[in-house]
Structures are given as structure tokens and as C-alpha cells.
């Protein structure tokens, strides 16, 4: 159990995103905005991604991060936010899925 009452600056995705921005890197922020059933990460969780595909944080237990990173590169390029939906692999158009059986919606936007 993390008992710190202060931010864990070295691991906090939003602090990392701000640091990347200050370094002049292009950044996208992905946020879990809805979950149904058993979802590994709660609503509000973040994954932050830079244009080289570096990332911090998580929006699932590692099941869909790869796909989110790929989409995030697009978002960084176009500047247009995207809403991604992931469910059990064979029930959706997505190649990746959540083996836990849940469904999540992830909002991906560019920083700036």
C-alpha cells in the first residue's frame, strides 16, 4: 500500500508529462474515462506518451497499452483527440483486448 501523502513525482504520469513538455517533447495524454465490469485501472488513470513512443503510467494491466501508444502517435501528429474503446478481444473490432472481461473507454489527447 502506498502510504505517502505527497505525490510520487518520479512516477506520477501528469508530473512526467509536464517535465516532457518543458523539455520540448511532443506529448499525448490518455485517460480512462469509463469502465464496465472488471477493469484493471480505475476511471481517471493516465498513460502519457511522447512522440518516440516512450510512455509512463497505465490504463489497463498492460493489455491495451501497446494499442494506446500507437493511437497516441497519431493524435500527436494530427492534434485531434480520439476516443478508444477496448473490450474482450473477440467482441470488438480491436485486435487487442482485456482478458479480464471488462470494457474500458480511453480518451487520448495531445498536450498543447
Amino acid at each position, binding site marked *: 500500500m502506498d502510504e505517502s501523502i505527497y505525490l510520487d513525482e518520479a512516477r506520477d504520469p501528469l508530473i512526467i508529462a509536464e517535465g516532457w513538455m518543458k523539455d520540448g517533447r511532443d506529448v499525448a495524454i490518455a485517460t480512462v474515462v469509463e469502465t464496465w465490469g472488471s477493469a484493471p485501472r480505475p476511471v481517471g488513470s493516465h498513460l502519457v506518451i511522447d512522440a518516440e513512443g516512450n510512455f509512463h503510467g497505465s490504463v489497463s494491466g498492460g493489455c491495451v497499452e501497446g494499442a494506446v501508444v500507437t493511437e497516441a502517435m497519431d493524435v500527436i501528429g494530427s492534434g485531434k483527440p480520439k476516443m478508444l474503446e477496448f473490450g474482450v478481444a473477440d467482441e470488438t473490432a480491436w485486435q487487442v483486448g482485456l482478458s479480464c472481461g471488462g470494457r474500458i473507454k480511453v*480518451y487520448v489527447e495531445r498536450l*498543447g
Partner: protein
Amino acid sequence: MDPYVLKTLNEERRARRAAVLVTDLGDGRDRIVREGDRVAGDLGAAIANAFRTGISRSVEAEGRTFFLNAHLPRPRLVVVGAVHISQALGPMARIAGYPVEIIDPRTAFATPERFPNVALHAEWPEDVLKRAPLDSYTALAAVTHDPKIDDFALKAALDARCFYIGALGSRKTHAKRVERLLALGAGADQIARIHAPIGLDIGAASPAEIAVAVLAQTIHAFRSRGLEAKGAVA
């Protein structure tokens, strides 16, 4: 996300101040709402709810879909007094999700043997609170019975608007305490926020039972923040 919004949000989070990030999922526009800011209508009600519960969610309002990301500082409990009650309160509060710090300058009381696995300061509250100030996401329970130790911490808790302030002692003891706090410059309405005798009235008798009563009162105070004005809390 607007870079300025991210910077502001991180500043608020670093300072242990609550903020809700409101994102319009239609056009991507976002803004920060701080606790106490007025927002009208259904959106305002949903934001108020996010501040109280800490739950992030998507809401429909004004024909649009907004995502509300609630960033609440982690609540914590500072206990003044390394006494028998605190020995039970420390582990209980931690399990309930409230990290605990115990302060008592009396080195015979504040020993690691009596308080394993808890942040313990064998120092005066004056010194500890200078390093780690109280804030509105901190609860303070003063349980030493000793004005020399309790009073400063209670005054500091009133000034910092701690979400919960409790002080051990009978009504008679508390009446004298009120006089002392008035002399220290606290206002009568401020002092009225102190829960004394401490703890929910569950007929607690043993130190461990009193700890349950204090923890329950702390949780109630945290979960009903902001409802007082509407008369929803007795």
C-alpha cells in the same frame, strides 16, 4: 490538454489542494475547478459531488459530455498524544485508508516499541507542524489531556481548516479549553468546530473502542465535507 491547465493542475496537486479537471469530450476543451469555485447547473452539482466523493466520471450536462477527473489530496490523520487510544487508532486508521502521524514530546510515551509501523515524532507539535503543516485534508485528534501539548496543535488545526478536529476530555475540561483557545485568538465559531468530547457517541469504554469512535467521526467528517452549509449534517 491545455499546457497551462496541466501546469496549474500539478501545482494544486503538489500543494495538497483539491481540484477537478473538467474536459469537454466533444471539443477537447478543459479547465480546472478548485474547491469552492461556483459552477452553475447540473455540471456544478456533478462537480460538487466529485469533490465530495473523489470519484472521477463522465457526465451529461447541457447537452454535452464532460469528463470530471477528481484530484483529491490523500486524507491523513495527525494524532497528538502517544497514548493508549493512539496505539489502537494508528493501525485502524491506516487500514481505513488514512495514513497516521503521531506526535508527542514525552519520550516515555512516544517509543517505537509502543508504536511499531507508524510515523512517530517524539517532539513538540510546534516543531513537527512547522515542517509538515496541517491542511484541509488533514484530521487532527488531540488526546494527551495536557494543554501544554494539545492547545497549540488545536489552534493550528483551526487555522488550517482541518476537515476534522477532535479533542479528548469531558465537557468540563473542554469548557476550560475553550477559554484558553479564545485567549490564543481563536474565534468562537472556529472553536465550535472542535468535536469534544471526542468521537461518535457509541458508548465507547475501552481505549480501542474510543479509537473506533474517533475514526468513525473522522470518516463522517471527511465524507460530508461541504454538506454542512446545506444542513445535511447535524
